[in-house]
């Protein structure tokens, strides 16, 4: 009997796709999100399709003081934790309403970093496990169009990198996932270039194989690696003039 996969942010499109990918492989699934009632249908769905055990867990990424008890109350410690939590409202709205901006920063950085830190301690002691953080290419350079979101993701990427460094000798894998554009609720209605835009299932497949291959950092679509090389190395005076 394999230990389960825990998905934090399971009501999201990516979270759902990831749950299907791992359930199809026979993993028991733990789904966690704020409104657990919204996951009842997913639970039935995963059970009927794949015949795996599925459990539901209330989880609020912003309520960091509850994270330790969340972990303690899990019926079984997961083999793999995947943090899909993310929040990207309109940048302009954030500039006007700093409480919204704060929520972006806390949801994309503080909350995920706290919960994964706590799991890291458990996994390190145990000597095995996989921690997966879905970060973003937006974290690789701040841009006018989404720097609240981008800066929080930058923090999360750096956090994952540090965590991986710390856990390198412990038998615990830390995987950073940089999806690029994905067709999800977050990007709905945006004009996205098809070549650069993945489906949630692609993200799920990429994560699954990256875990098998013990990877550290993956771009879901490889072309993003090169795009980001260029964007990172553009000199600031030039970068300032571009509308990105």
């Amino acid at each position, binding site marked *: 009997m394999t230990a389960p996969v825990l998905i934090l*942010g399971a*009501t999201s*499109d990516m979270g759902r796709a990831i749950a299907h990918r791992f359930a199809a492989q026979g993993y028991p699934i733990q789904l966690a999100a*704020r409104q657990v009632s*919204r996951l009842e*249908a*997913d639970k*039935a*769905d995963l059970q*009927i*399709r794949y015949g795996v055990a599925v459990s539901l867990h209330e989880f609020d*990424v*912003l309520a960091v003081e509850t994270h330790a008890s969340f972990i303690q109350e899990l019926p079984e410690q997961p083999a793999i934790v995947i943090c899909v*939590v*993310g*929040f990207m*409202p309109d940048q302009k709205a954030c500039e006007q309403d700093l409480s919204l901006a704060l*929520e972006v920063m806390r*949801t994309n950085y503080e909350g995920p970093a706290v919960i994964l830190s706590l799991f890291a301690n458990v996994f390190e002691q145990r000597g095995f496990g996989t921690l997966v953080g879905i970060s973003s290419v937006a974290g690789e350079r701040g841009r006018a169009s989404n720097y609240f979101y981008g800066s929080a993701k930058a923090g999360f990427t750096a956090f994952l990198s540090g965590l991986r460094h710390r856990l390198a000798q412990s038998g615990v894998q830390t995987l950073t996932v940089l999806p690029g554009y994905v067709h999800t*609720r977050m990007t*709905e*209605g945006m004009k996205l270039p098809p070549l650069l835009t993945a489906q949630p299932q692609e993200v799920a497949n990429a994560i699954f194989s990256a875990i098998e291959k013990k990877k550290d950092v993956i771009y879901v679509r490889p072309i993003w690696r090169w795009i980001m090389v260029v964007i990172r190395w553009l000199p600031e005076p030039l970068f300032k003039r571009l509308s990105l």
Partner: protein
Amino acid sequence: MSSPITHRGYLQQLCGWGRYPVQPCHVYCPRSESEILQLLNSGLPLIARGNGRAYGDSALNGKATLQMRHFNRLLGFNPQTGQLIAEAGVLLADILELFVPRGWFPLITPGTKFVTVGGMIAADVHGKNHHKEGSFVQSLDWLDLLTTGGQIHRCSPSENRDLFYWTVGGMGLTGVILRAAFRLRPIETAWIRQTTRIAKNLDEVINLFEAAQDVTYSVAWIDCLAVGSQLGRSVVMLGEHATREELPAKYRQRPRRTPRRRKLSIPVDFPNGALNALTVRAFNQLYFLNQQRKAGQSFVDWDTFFYPLDSLLGWNRIYGRRGFVQFQCVLPLRTAREGLSELLHCTSAAGAGSFLAVLKQLGDQQGYFSFPMAGYTLALDFPVSQRTFKVLDQLEEITLHYGGRFYLAKDSHLTPMCLRKSDSRVERFVQVRNAHQWNVHFASEQSKRLNL
């Protein structure tokens, strides 16, 4: 996280499977019932959309098209009764992939598996077994409908009976179908024992159908360019679910596994006019000869038997960028021979030969507004052009003359007058819609065109 963003629709050029008409639509992709509810409460008349397999404008609404594909979960399965409970956006293809290996098959299936549960109910689809087992409603135990006022009604033949029978075949105009329970049939194998017969003309086809009343599945492919004494020459395919014992030894070991079919994609639009009388004639001739060679009994996997065109992904592109229209009518038994012959005459005379012409026998109907009636249904498709519309006008006239009616899931051309002449149930449907204010909340480009 945080409060879910609602009401964020986006503008998209949308069309049905026939790629005609194309219409800019505000598309909404809700993830939860409360989001649908909010949209409903905003007062926009909306239409639910599944996988966009209706041919015309049935699932388009410029103001608000509700994309239901995120409601794609299976909620329950009872292995004693074969009852499956599924959300409206579940694809039939997913159900088949999952349940055929487990020994189950839908009681009723249309000719493509790329349809959603909600779509099958809204069009009350029929299959090759309609003459014997009826349309989708026959397999439907209940459905949950979100309707005017934001109420969710459980509808079945015993509960909210009228709403149930108006919704089945109601083209999404009574509310938003959220989920449904319907039955699958147990199958021993994934194979169909197929008997292929050749009919030299229309009379022979109909005689073959009449003689095959007890056969579960029957369908005919008509060479609709054949003329004179050959008018209506057809390949008739009859099928039964094969039992394990009937199967050839090589399949018997794993009777519910079938080889995966190779999928071909049509990567680009064919040039307009690539399908002309000449190429269609050549295709029909080849197909006919090929089938003639295969006449007799054979074992065919379920995918090939039920969904022959699905292996050609994007086959609608064959008709070029302008798209195509499908014409499907049903003629009552008493006028079928005469009426069909006139429809085929009209088609072949116009030289507007259809790539695909399918003839099926239909049985009686239960839904208040469903398409089928006891008789014969003919489906033809034509590339969009001014000439095609003239042919359609003629075909519609003939259908009216012989007391037939039209399949709304295929339609993009009918007029309000023509629809009303064909179907005395239309006025009642409109009355009920007005009385319950369904017309305020639910509308499609089709319902606007047809004054439904």
